[in-house]
């Protein structure tokens, strides 16, 4: 991604002025594995940017470098104009980092956890106390503030985990799969909180392998696979790449791989993938005309069809179109 300086304001390849986060040609390898390979993207203030990709795509490695936890092997990162490395305290003071795992001390209370991280974030004693109370209110844990975290439910821990990242009012909030392992109710609460944050002007970098979350939260999405950013744009822009394509999801009883192989021979199917759970995804131009042919071919393999779903183009379909794989493979 390239950038130009215009009348004192930065303009990056997204066309947005004054990017809060700019990653340029990031690289990271572990032994022979290229975990992140030449990834560039930028985020503007108030924008929510999603890194969407399956597990192992390189999302966490990427944001670990953005958070200054890991050193990049190549490329540059700037946060609010400050270069970010593992030693950049100034850049780190501008970010809030919420790791994928629950990064809390279970034998401390919720309040003690927040107070500890508030002090580490260089908040003064008075300010830290006020912010801890505010964040407890935001994450809905004021009543449980004096309880040890080990007594919290999974959803409460997740909320507190996010709350730690908000303590020092960061300009950029980095969230690594914050809803993994969370019940639907807590998940909705978390997503609503993040939506609220982005409206308050905070930039959000969000990784997920749930395309529904990316579609709901993100202004723009970067699709990552095998360490590379293979597509980028708003959810609407990305799905528009598929044209009028539609998405047929078959749940089969039998060998889904055999069904997928048979369907790949059909001219109407542009992409086909199968999962071990018996789900076969077929990308077609017009589901209305293609569906009978698809069903004939699938049943012709001897497999029974248990359910059929036709969906409008979504990010899942985009990913399937780009990689031939499902997001949750």
């Amino acid at each position: 991604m390239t950038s130009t300086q215009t009348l004192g304001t930065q303009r990056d390849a997204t066309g947005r002025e004054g990017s809060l986060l700019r990653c340029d040609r990031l690289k990271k390898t572990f032994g022979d594995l290229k975990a992140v390979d030449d990834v560039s993207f930028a985020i503007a203030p108030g924008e929510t940017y999603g890194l969407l990709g399956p597990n192992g795509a390189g999302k966490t490695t990427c944001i670990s470098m953005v958070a200054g936890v890991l050193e990049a092997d190549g490329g540059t990162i700037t946060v609010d104009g400050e270069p970010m490395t593992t030693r950049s305290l100034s850049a780190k003071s501008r970010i809030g980092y919420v790791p994928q795992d629950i990064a809390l001390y279970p034998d401390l209370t919720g309040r003690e956890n927040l107070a500890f991280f508030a002090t580490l974030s260089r908040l003064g004693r008075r300010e830290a106390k006020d912010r801890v109370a505010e964040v407890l209110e935001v994450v809905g844990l004021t009543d449980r503030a004096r309880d040890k975290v080990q007594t919290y439910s999974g959803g409460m821990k997740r909320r507190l985990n996010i709350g730690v990242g908000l303590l020092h009012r960061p300009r950029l909030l980095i969230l690594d799969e914050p809803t993994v392992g969370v019940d639907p109710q807590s998940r909705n609460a978390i997503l609503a909180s993040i939506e609220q944050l982005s409206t308050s002007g905070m930039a959000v970098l969000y990784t997920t392998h749930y395309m529904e979350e990316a579609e709901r939260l993100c202004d723009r999405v970067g699709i990552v696979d095998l360490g590379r950013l293979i597509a980028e744009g708003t959810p609407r822009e990305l799905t528009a790449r598929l044209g009028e394509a539609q998405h047929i999801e078959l749940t089969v009883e039998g060998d889904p791989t055999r069904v997928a192989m048979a369907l790949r021979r059909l001219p109407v199917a542009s992409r086909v993938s199968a999962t071990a759970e018996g789900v076969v995804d077929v990308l077609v131009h017009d589901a209305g005309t293609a569906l009978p042919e698809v069903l004939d071919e699938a049943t012709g393999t001897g497999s029974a069809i248990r359910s059929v779903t036709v969906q409008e183009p979504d990010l899942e379909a985009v990913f399937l179109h780009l990689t031939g794989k499902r997001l949750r493979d």
Partner: protein
Amino acid sequence: MHPALTLAGKDLRQRLRDRSAVMLAVVVPLALAAIFSVLFGPSSTPRAFEYGVVDADGSAMTRGFTAEVLGALEDAEVAEVIALEDAAAARRQVRDGDLDAAFVLPAGFDTGVRGDAPVAIAVVGSPDSVTATSVARSVARSYVGGLNAVRVAVAAIGTSGVRLGPADIEQVAEQTVHGVSPVVLADVSAGARVLDAKTYFAAGMAVFFLLFTVQFGVSSLIDERAEGTLARLLAAPVPRWSILAGKLLTSVVLGVASLTVLVVATSLLLGATWGNPLAVAALVLCGVLAATGITAVVASTARTAEQAGSWQAVVAVSLGLLGGAFFPIQQSGSFLATASLITPHAWFMQGLANLSGGGGLGVVAPACVALLVMAAATGAVALARIDRVVAP
């Protein structure tokens, strides 16, 4: 507040809530010190030998042995000597275990020495008091050796044709005895000073468990890595060295607190005598620094908490055994005694042993310097590996 202090404060709060840490740092070493001092205390405390003596001759010569030779042993508090009626009483009391050994100087001893008749000092020894019997035999042998020297001198003059009267013989004896180098018993070195059993086991257990106690600080870095909180610390606006410094500080505070509690508790509850408080405090601080450095190096080589725990245990037990935390390694031969000096335990115990003879900071200075050198060397290794230690 400095991030290192913030981190140490958080860690100490966690440790105080962790009962296993308190058990390992204070309760277990205190209990073991009490048990060991009860089990091994009496046998490991040096005591005076108990000797009996039968002087059936009652001559000036035998009184020379009982008063001067055995008296000297009593004066040096090496032995307590009681007079016995006869040889039968001596045998009975030694057999019954009332005495370690007994000397029997028979009637006619003086006459025999002055003449040509064979005479002997009998030593009645106990098989249960091998050392005491051996010492008694050596004392008797030494005295008899002196007398034989006189007899040989007198006999040599006699063969030259000179007739000696009693006064001449007395003069020859004096000159002969004075011409022979006296046998002396001397304390070999200050290092030979020993702690009493209660203090020895109190100190041994305290320094042994110190390596387990200080690991709660440094090794918690590995726990933080496993639990994901280290990534959050690394993303915070704090330098990496301050994270390591916070952990090291936690170790030092835990170690000093643990040893201080043990010093006070063993003094009050077990009657241990540690010595000059200022010198003990210096030893404690230097010992904790050395233990923290060693633990930091071990932690820097481990990737998982399980690995760290296993390696810490192996290192702590090995160094404890070699360093004399369980038994006086100085008594196991010069090689082991020399090898023990690679351990902080040996220097800590040596410092305390030196302190048992009195004195203050100057007495423990060599031990403190050795411990500080260990702390500096191991600390430097840990700092050189900071990118591996403080890493996600």
